[in-house]
């Protein structure tokens, strides 16, 4: 099932008239990193145990710290423009590997850390010096706070969180929820309306950096069915702004560009989660016995697994093309939406089918398909709903 995850070898096909050069995405050697990832997971098994990630207090900071210390983030980070393809394909390896660790759960905060918060910060010249470096070392982390209660995730024009001037300081008031990694963040990247143009010369959404421990900041962990313990609510009551990352009217534009990257990476993660549960279901079908024979002896089971495996291959091909486009600096919004939408659809289907193939065992918390089903619901919302993706595809 992993056969598309690396570039094919360049062997010579007999009789092929053209030189056998692969044009497939990838082709960046990642074997060393893959080995490094395997060593990390072997060494830090206790951090990656699935049951620790079913609690309301999963070891997010420990994981980020350990991963940073092991150099996993830096391996997936571009030192300059030319380094971008290497970094992106290493990030793919990272998310691919973590989709199979701890029922895929530890991969969630890791992606939020690397590909949401840190990567967004790195695109913002106003970000405080050293913040990205510390994040890459896994010493600090930030959360991107956009979604608000009541509004649909995609309707950012109706922000109620707002920044205002209070004497010499800028303060933010409002509420954000379903913020990934919020319970564990040192910093908050808050999208807030600036109705009085206090952050710049224009009104409209601004992007602001707040310290998570600042006065007026209250956080709580949400009891969500997926992403257990990883998602938070943030209440801001005249909380002081640390840095204006993007002034009023510019906040959304920054996010739009960022979301292309985020959506493709989330799509990588969803695809690999799906792949993991399909592989698990196939493996289990060899062992689970009903009516005197192994489940896999049922033609309908093999057909369902075969169908799912084809969907995994297809989505992976689509998503890897997205990575290639990102690497070349030219992934259109619509294509990122294709990746995100298709991967969400795949994960929904694969998790639900894999659960069904596992019978009562699949209904048990701790079963990979069950976890993927729950997490998949949240991932489908991350970075924009299906409907928003479809609208972006329609726009071309």
């Amino acid at each position, binding site marked *: *099932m992993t*056969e*598309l995850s690396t570039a*094919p*070898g*360049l*062997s*010579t*096909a007999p*009789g*092929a*008239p*053209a030189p*056998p*050069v*692969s*044009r*497939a*995405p990838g082709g960046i050697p990642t074997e060393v990193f893959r080995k490094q990832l395997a060593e990390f997971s072997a060494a830090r098994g206790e951090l990656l145990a699935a049951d620790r990630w079913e609690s309301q207090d999963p070891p997010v900071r420990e994981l980020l710290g350990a991963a940073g210390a092991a150099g996993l983030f830096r391996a997936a980070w571009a030192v300059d423009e030319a380094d971008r393809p290497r970094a992106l394909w290493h990030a793919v390896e990272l998310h691919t590997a973590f989709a199979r660790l701890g029922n895929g759960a530890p991969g969630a905060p890791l992606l939020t850390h690397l590909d949401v918060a840190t990567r967004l910060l790195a695109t913002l010249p106003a970000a405080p010096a050293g913040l990205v470096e510390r994040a890459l070392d896994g010493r600090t982390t930030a959360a991107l706070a956009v979604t608000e209660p009541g509004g649909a995730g995609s309707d950012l024009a109706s922000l109620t969180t707002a920044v205002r001037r209070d004497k010499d300081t800028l303060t933010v008031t409002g509420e954000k929820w379903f913020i990934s990694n919020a319970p564990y963040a040192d910093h908050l990247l808050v999208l807030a309306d600036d109705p009085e143009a206090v952050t710049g010369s224009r009104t409209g959404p601004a992007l602001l950096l707040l310290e998570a421990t600042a006065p007026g900041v209250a956080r709580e962990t949400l009891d969500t069915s997926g992403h257990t313990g990883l998602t938070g609510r943030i209440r801001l009551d005249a909380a002081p702004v640390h840095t204006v990352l993007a002034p009023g009217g510019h906040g959304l534009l920054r996010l739009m560009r960022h979301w292309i990257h985020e959506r493709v990476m989330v799509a990588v993660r969803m695809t690999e989660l799906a792949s993991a549960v399909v592989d698990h279901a*196939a493996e289990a*079908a060899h062992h689970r016995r009903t009516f005197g024979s192994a489940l*896999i*002896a049922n*033609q309908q089971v*093999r*057909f369902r*697994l*075969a*169908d799912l*495996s*084809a*969907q995994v*291959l*297809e*989505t992976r*091909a*689509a998503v*890897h*093309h997205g990575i*290639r*486009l990102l690497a*070349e600096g*030219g*992934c*259109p919004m*619509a*294509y990122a*939406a*294709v990746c995100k*939408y*298709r991967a969400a659809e795949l994960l929904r289907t694969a998790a639900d089918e894999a659960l069904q193939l596992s019978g009562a065992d699949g209904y048990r918390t701790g079963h990979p398909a069950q976890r993927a089903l729950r997490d998949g619901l949240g991932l489908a919302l991350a970075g924009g709903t299906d*409907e928003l*993706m*479809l*609208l972006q*595809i*329609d726009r*071309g």
Partner: protein
Amino acid sequence: MTATLTTTARAGWFTEAEDRLREELTEHFARQVEPHIPAWESAGEIPLRDILTALGERGMLGLRFPVERGGAGHSAWSHVVLAECLGELSSDSVGMSVTVHNDMVAPMIAEAGGPEAVERHLRPALTGRHLLAHAVSEPGAGSDVAAVATTAVPVDGGYRVSGTKQWVIAGMYADAYAVLARLPEAKPPFGYVLLMVPRSAEGVTVGPADPTLGMRAAGVAGSVRLDEVFVPQSDRLGGHGLGLVTQLRQFEPERIVSACRALAIAARLLRDTRARLAERSTFGESVGSRQEIVFRLARLEADIAAARQLAYTGIDRWVAGGDHRTVSAAVKLRSSRLTRRVARECLHLYGAQGQLTEEGVNRAFRDARLFSISTGSDEMMLTALARLNGWADD
């Protein structure tokens, strides 16, 4: 599909030379083929020889075959370009017939034919003057190729072949057939021979097929009867006894190329439907701007874009000499089902108009339904995928 997404989908996969080939083919088809399709379809017949000759004259046949065998020495990507341009045509009777000639039979000669077979069948085929078809299916054998009853008895200098093939696409147009036959001692997968049988050979009788849902101008032969037909050894493709192996190996890349054509058909239907809906309005509102329809089309676009990447991945594996069997089965399954779904949804969106047999979308619906049935049915592909994944049979 929106033009942007199509361009995006191709980025990195095609060379500039291939892009130019696409332009040339697009222009050629738009001028020389597409305008005639309504009349051809209405008559139930296409001038396949003229179509192929025109392509041959422009050097667009067999591009991927070695120069020494009459080809241009290009890569399989040039055949993908042709397949996608064929999918742009509103008749898959044309698309399928050209594909049978250039991407199903010709490759077997190019890869497994001896020098005489190349001279006799491949070189003239690549000029478009010698038409090839594939006589593989038999009554009762269905998709189970190994179950052929046609027999080749070794005789001095060749074989005597007897049996009946059915459902031969372009069989009414063809000059020669690739025929799979069992040797008297056949024991799968060995004991078969693959032979090129000229239509003019003594003992060959070809009859038209009963009407079908689509492919009404594809010259489908209902039966190709072979009665003690002598075929010289030099017209055998692959070794004595290795016919089935040669045939099965050919199916794998062929299916990826077919998938490329299927996906191009799906993309074209979506584009045409989008254009039509933009013009059409009910209750004072453009139908195409209705949210339900926007979402419906966008879902299909996403599916096509994704399946295309799988097809290109498969082509790339094949070209680069990697194992492409799993991708081949996967993309054949996905593209056949998707094209069928796209055609059905587009037909629905055409409303009453779509009911007319002459409407492009109606023809496409009827033509495209064949993908899930022929050249590897959906069920065959699922079986193949399960096996390739190591999931044992009963």
